[in-house]
């Protein structure tokens, strides 16, 4: 480590690492230097001139956002000259800024308002006509109000540098300079909304949030996105049990400021008109709404009778319910229903990877943070930018900030091709051996096209490189990884312990031979299958599966309950209830009530999420994670490698849905925002 640089800011002695920008050094010391255009991690602009400070021996005010600290530098941010510069820069900004704060979405959390409040002039001397242009809609998601724009160019930089999309630019020059979308009159991009999030004013606003609320009327609940497996934290702004907005406003969580369209907007499925709000029972061939008590009693009676008749059960768990729910469900199946016919839709071969790593005695699982920090990456099969936008973002940022080397072997062109060290089409990665051996470390990311023997070969390849290698086995959904960890398969118990009993797999359960099939948060009949004698379904919507059911129990979504989920990299995070919902109940409650109705609750224990989390932490290998981390909104990586796993899963059962940016299984079908974007793209 080079020696720290000593400097003085406002009379205070400060030290900072060489190369630190003055604005950051001041911030670390608790001295605010205001800025609009400066944004950590993006290229420097020096455009807004808000960060001008006095530096001794310099004839002019200097921009603190471009000036690296220097030994002996004497800086003043508290002089009348600096105050005047800030005040009048704001006056300049306000000349063409419409003072429509009372109807602006940003009012109340606007950086320009805050700056004017703190540093600006109370009155304007501007009496000329303001430049005005009408508002434009760039996409279903993105609206642009040019007059409000202060031209800090953050949106252009985050889209280009941060997202690697480059869908926004600047056209014209001078006072009529304007942010413009890539297709002339509209945007064609990831619709991630990063531009909206990063906008310090109300120039870029979101189609779903605009004119919905004043920001201060919202309650902000930090929870985890329920769509893909990446596990981004999203802060839901709620009001009167409605979700109004999703963002990651405090940039906490594994995703920092990153969110894709799903994390930011696709929460809207929760109040789709088709959402189930009352239990349904099939009467005379038709599903009819009934009370919860009738529904639960009917299910419990059916289960009890089937048990008494020595009937057969099948239980299908979910890729997006919580760990606690899957844990409780498999326990229910095994301990109460006495069946090992327990399974779920597997989207990646995690089991073989864990076994192969145990066999190899080395190699581990990479975390989301690793993707930003490790030096080299081998991406196999997946189109990360579309299917795992956070992972793609981490690797892209790693390249941008640390020049990570990326090797891509995919069937089709992918976005990583643009900046990778090597890109191959197909599946053969062996020709990269020599190059990879020269790396000091490697992260291998692979999708469901690598299963069984292919995964073992891959681990053998990784081991042969002679460098530290870690892995990310890609899975699809928000708790795909947790489902397998929780033993939601016939051959394994929670923590990958062998169940030692035979059990039916999903496809076998769909053959129609069971007396009762209980489906919790899944849609196994999406592509057909034979209805069993009695079908119980817990879900949010009347899916292909639910519409065939004898009883449908309306379930709460991830934003309406507590619990933990485990993301693609094995990191456990806690869901927090953001809104209460009418009619639907969390799956855990539904299962608990059924157990109670069956007088079997005592066997399974209390069905409070936290109590079950405790049980999981105590009993599931690898889940000994610090509870304080989870409780405070952090992520804790599990270490489920537990020696050899036997038996391995059947590779033929693994298949990914390969959801792109605008799809998300069942939930995506009920998101207005995702559908509007898809329709809009089809129209252009």
């Amino acid at each position, binding site marked *: 480590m080079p020696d720290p640089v000593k400097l003085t800011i406002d009379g205070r002695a400060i030290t900072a690492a060489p190369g630190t920008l003055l604005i950051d050094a001041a911030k670390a010391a608790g001295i605010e230097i205001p800025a609009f255009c400066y944004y950590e991690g993006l290229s420097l602009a*020096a455009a*807004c001139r808000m960060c001008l400070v006095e530096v001794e021996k310099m004839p002019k005010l200097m921009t603190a956002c471009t000036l690296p600290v220097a030994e002996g530098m004497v800086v003043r941010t508290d002089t009348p000259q600096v105050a005047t510069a800030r005040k009048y*820069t704001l006056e300049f900004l306000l000349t063409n800024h419409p003072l429509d704060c009372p109807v602006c979405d940003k009012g109340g959390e606007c950086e320009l308002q805050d700056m004017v409040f703190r540093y600006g002039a109370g009155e304007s*001397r501007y009496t000329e006509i303001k430049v005005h242009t009408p508002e434009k809609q760039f996409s279903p998601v993105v609206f642009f109000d040019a007059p409000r724009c202060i031209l800090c160019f953050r949106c252009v930089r985050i889209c280009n540098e941060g997202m690697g999309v480059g869908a926004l630019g600047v056209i014209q020059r*001078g*006072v*009529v300079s304007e942010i413009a979308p890539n297709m002339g009159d509209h945007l064609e991009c990831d619709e991630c909304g990063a531009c909206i999030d990063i906008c310090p004013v109300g120039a870029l606003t979101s189609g779903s949030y605009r004119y919905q609320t004043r920001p201060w009327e919202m309650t902000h609940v930090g929870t985890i996105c329920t769509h893909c497996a990446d596990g981004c934290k999203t802060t839901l702004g709620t009001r009167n049990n409605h979700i109004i907005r999703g963002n990651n406003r405090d940039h906490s969580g594994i995703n920092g400021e990153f969110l894709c369209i799903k994390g930011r907007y696709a929460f809207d499925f929760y109040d789709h008109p088709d959402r189930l709000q009352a239990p349904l029972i099939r009467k005379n061939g038709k599903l009819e709404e009934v009370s919860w008590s009738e529904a639960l009693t009917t299910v419990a009676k059916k289960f009890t009778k089937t048990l008494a008749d020595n009937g057969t059960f099948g239980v299908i768990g979910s890729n997006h319910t919580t760990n606690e729910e899957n844990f409780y469900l498999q326990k229910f199946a095994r301990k109460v229903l006495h069946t090992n016919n327990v399974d779920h839709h597997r989207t990646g071969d995690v089991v073989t990877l864990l076994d192969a790593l145990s066999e190899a005695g080395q190699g581990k699982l990479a975390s989301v943070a690793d993707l930003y920090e490790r030096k080299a990456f081998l991406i196999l099969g997946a189109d990360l930018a579309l299917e795992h936008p956070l992972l793609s973002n981490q690797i892209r940022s790693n390249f941008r900030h640390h020049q990570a080397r990326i090797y891509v072997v995919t069937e089709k062109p992918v976005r990583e091709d643009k900046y990778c060290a090597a890109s191959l089409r197909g599946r053969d990665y062996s020709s990269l051996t020599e190059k990879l051996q020269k790396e000091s470390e490697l992260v291998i990311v692979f999708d469901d096209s690598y299963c069984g023997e292919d995964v073992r070969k891959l681990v053998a390849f990784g081991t042969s490189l002679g460098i530290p290698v870690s892995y990310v086995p890609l899975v699809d959904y928000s708790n795909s990884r947790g489902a397998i960890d929780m033993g939601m398969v016939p051959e394994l118990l929670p923590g990958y312990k062998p169940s030692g009993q035979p059990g039916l797999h999903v496809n076998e359960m769909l053959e129609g031979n069971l007396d009762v099939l209980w489906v919790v948060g899944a849609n196994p009949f999406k592509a057909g299958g034979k209805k069993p004698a009695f079908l119980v379904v817990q879900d949010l919507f009347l899916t292909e599966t639910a519409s065939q059911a004898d009883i449908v129990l309306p379930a709460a979504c991830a934003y309406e309950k507590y619990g933990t989920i485990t993301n693609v990299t094995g990191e456990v995070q806690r869901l927090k209830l953001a809104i209460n919902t009418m009619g639907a109940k969390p799956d855990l409650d539904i299962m608990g009530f059924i157990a109670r109705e069956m007088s079997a609750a005592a066997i399974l224990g209390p069905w409070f999420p936290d109590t079950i989390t405790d049980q999981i932490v105590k009993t599931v290998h690898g889940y000994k994670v610090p509870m304080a981390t989870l409780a405070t909104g952090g992520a804790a990586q599990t270490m489920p490698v537990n020696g050899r796993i036997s038996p391995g899963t059947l590779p033929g059962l693994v298949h990914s849905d390969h959801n792109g940016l605008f799809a998300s299984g069942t939930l995506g079908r009920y998101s207005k925002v995702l559908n509007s974007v898809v329709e809009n793209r089809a129209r252009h």
Partner: protein
Amino acid sequence: MLYNEPSPLETRVLSRRFGQPNSTSIETYLADEGYAAFKKAAGMTPEKIIEEVKISNLRGRGGAGFPTGMKWSFVPRTSPKPKYIVVNADESEPGTCKDRVLIENDPHQLIEGVLIAGLAVDAHAGYIYVRGEYRYLIEILDKAIAEAYEKGFLGKNIQGTGFDFELYTHTGAGAYECGEESALLESLEGKRGIPRIRPPFPAVAGAFQCPTVLNNVETYCAVPAILRDGGAAFAALGIPKAGGTKMTCLTGHINKPGVYELKLGFPVKQMIEEVGGGIRMGHKLKAFIPGGSSCPVLTAAEVEGANMDYDSMASRKSMLGSGGVIIMDDQTCMVKAALRIMKFYAHESCGWCIPCREGTTWLRKILDRFHSGGGTRADINLIGDISRNMLGRTFCPLGDAAAMPTLSIVEKFRGEFEDHLNGKPCPYEHEMATA
């Protein structure tokens, strides 16, 4: 071709071949010591070339006046990166039309200057960035460059010296800001003409992020004479801290407008009266801009005893600038002049930084309203205040360039602003003189 009669008071160093028949052809050039300086320089060490330029006291002729030899010495000659020579022929400072004359009359002199700069910093490629409006100059240059290739003064192993050099013309497309060196480099790379954050300076990271010498046309054109006749001889033409001559454009209310090559330190009074033949129609001098519209305006009284050099102008809180002298007689409306100047800067502001983008337009609007009779007394102070709030706080010198003349006009000609008050439209408006 010349557009004005030469003056006997000129010192014709850079313009020595002007007016000769076929002055643009390489034959004419070679017949008059053309490329002799290059040959001489090729036999010198790079250090010696730079030393000679330093001795000449040549200072950048684009307007900033930075010592050229020192600028060249900042280029890391031993850098493994390629180095480039870039010529700023984006002449667009209002009042300035000298580079045009230099290229139009003697393109080979520029090429030779570029070659010598190439020798000095180990550069093997160069670009002449010509403003888009000067299309005919690109044609002249392309022809001259082709001749130079043909005669072995460009290309591989030039004149058997082992020195290689490729030279290209590059057109701009209408943007004053691209005359600013870092914006020019952005434009050369096919981007919007937004200046770069400095450091690094072009000497270290210029064209294509490689070490680059970037000078004005006139600066390069002075180099052959310096190498040919020695830096000391060039220095002796000027004054102690600024050597040589300055191509000076007399514009505005002057009887003999034109481009004249005058020794640095030439007396302003003599320049107006003798070189320029005095103020038109016997009027009196009201205001004087020494070197392009970016310079603070001087009053007739301030010009008394002034000379056309860096220090003399600096001591009067103005600048020598680009050599675009703007002369305004006592019939001139200074509010209108300020308005027109601000209209220009508001049009040319790149829009990157807040004070320049918003300040220039705000000032333009106030001045426009003021000149049409809608001004208030408070506006007068406001004009000064806005200018002061731009000064020194913008991303690049364009903000200063807009603020300085305005500030000087509002401070020195406040009375004219007063005259425009009370709904009285411009009291200086006149019919078109020739109409």
